[in-house]
């Protein structure tokens, strides 16, 4: 029997990249804790710490995000992320693809002629 939880994990992994880029793009600079917190406010489907940080590493390595360390008076230094020009371009393409996917799903369900 198919495991819905496994599917959910795979789905989260698939959209986490899009969600993180969209979130970072909406603000000027965000650190990892803030990103996770904002994503958790969106609902249960979104990704948690165990997904977000690996995605952040990859997005930065791919050049879609840039980062800088900022010393904090309250504790350890924080790493702030901002979207790069390449990231903006990628986000635009990804959202176009995502919308196309949603349209296809809608047509399959018969919501649209």
């Amino acid at each position, binding site marked *: 029997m198919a495991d819905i939880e496994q599917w959910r994990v795979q789905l989260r992994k698939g959209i986490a990249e899009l969600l993180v880029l969209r979130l970072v793009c909406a603000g000027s600079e965000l650190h990892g804790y803030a990103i996770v917190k904002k994503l958790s406010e969106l609902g249960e489907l979104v990704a948690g710490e165990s997904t977000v940080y690996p995605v952040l590493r990859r997005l930065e390595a791919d050049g879609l995000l840039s980062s800088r360390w900022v010393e904090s008076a*309250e504790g350890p230094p924080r790493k702030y992320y901002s979207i790069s020009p390449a990231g903006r371009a990628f986000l635009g393409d990804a959202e176009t693809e995502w919308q196309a996917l949603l349209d296809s799903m809608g047509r399959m369900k018969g919501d649209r002629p």
Partner: protein
Amino acid sequence: MTTHQDEVSRYLTKLADGLGALGPAETQEVLAEVRSHIQDSLSETGEDSAVVLARFGSPEALAMRILEERGILPGTSALPDAPAWMRRTALALDILVTVFLLVMSAALIAAIMWLATSIERLGWPLVLMVALMPPAALCLFWAIARWCRARRASVTTVGLGLMGLRRLRIGQSDHLIRKRDLPGVSVKPWDRLHWGLRFACLLVVLAVLGCAVTALAFALTQHTSVTSGSVALMEAPYAVMAMDEMSDFYESVTTGSSTQDIRDRFGPQAPEIAASLLARRHAGKLSTYRTGGSSLAEYFPAASTDTSLHSPSEQLLLTVDVVEYPQGSYEGMVYRYVLAWTFTGIQIDRSVQRIEGTLVVVSCTAEDDDQNLPAH
């Protein structure tokens, strides 16, 4: 708070262990970011650290996800192994360094053992200093290794460093990968030069150490052999000793030492010679005396040229002339004493040489009495 910190530290340690393939720089970044997140979460929510850590998942799983996202898959390496010729060259360099270190260590141990047999001559401080050098070097090496491990610095071998390679554990196997192929590792232009300088410094230090120990051993050997060879050729030490001995003999006899004391001090023939001396004194023939020259006995023909005369139990015959003056007279009678010197050793204390042995009085004849010359 201490418990929370311990829990977080343990988590981060395990996470670091799982991120080995990332390289030390990127691993430290990940740890710093996770640490910062945990701190923010604890400060803001007041949750227990276990709850916060649970949201990250197990450190092994988190490390694996990070490596997956970075293209380094567990069990297989997305990174190319270093070319075979680089791996073999690194191994050859490591073997060369190891052999060199073993040879130098063996030489140092041999020098220490040789020095240990010369403690009395060299003194305890010098021997202890040399003997403590290998354990001190081992302690220093251990401290450096601990420091590197505490800072998660990459501890690698000389060969790997010179060839620009790094050993990584990916999954269940070890791989040798070129540093420039590692993600997140920036290879600086002076990296290999840095390693080359370290290697050169190590060789120079070991070479200087080896030369110093060898030079010390050689100098001591030379010193000893020169000293040994010169003992038999020098009459001066014997002359001084012999004249001192005769002065002591006359002093002992004229001050009334017992026969047993004289026998013990100057040999079995000495009491009879002492009795004659005492008789001359009572007869007024001996008021003052003066020790004259001393020499190796002429009837021991090889003495002056025998360079091997420095082994134990070798015996020399020495002569000392003593001039005895009666009361109120400047005309003295020369008595020739023959002393037997038995060599037992040389005591060398820094630059001072002392000859050790026993000296006994063998015979005494008046200068003009040839019939009583001692036979050899």
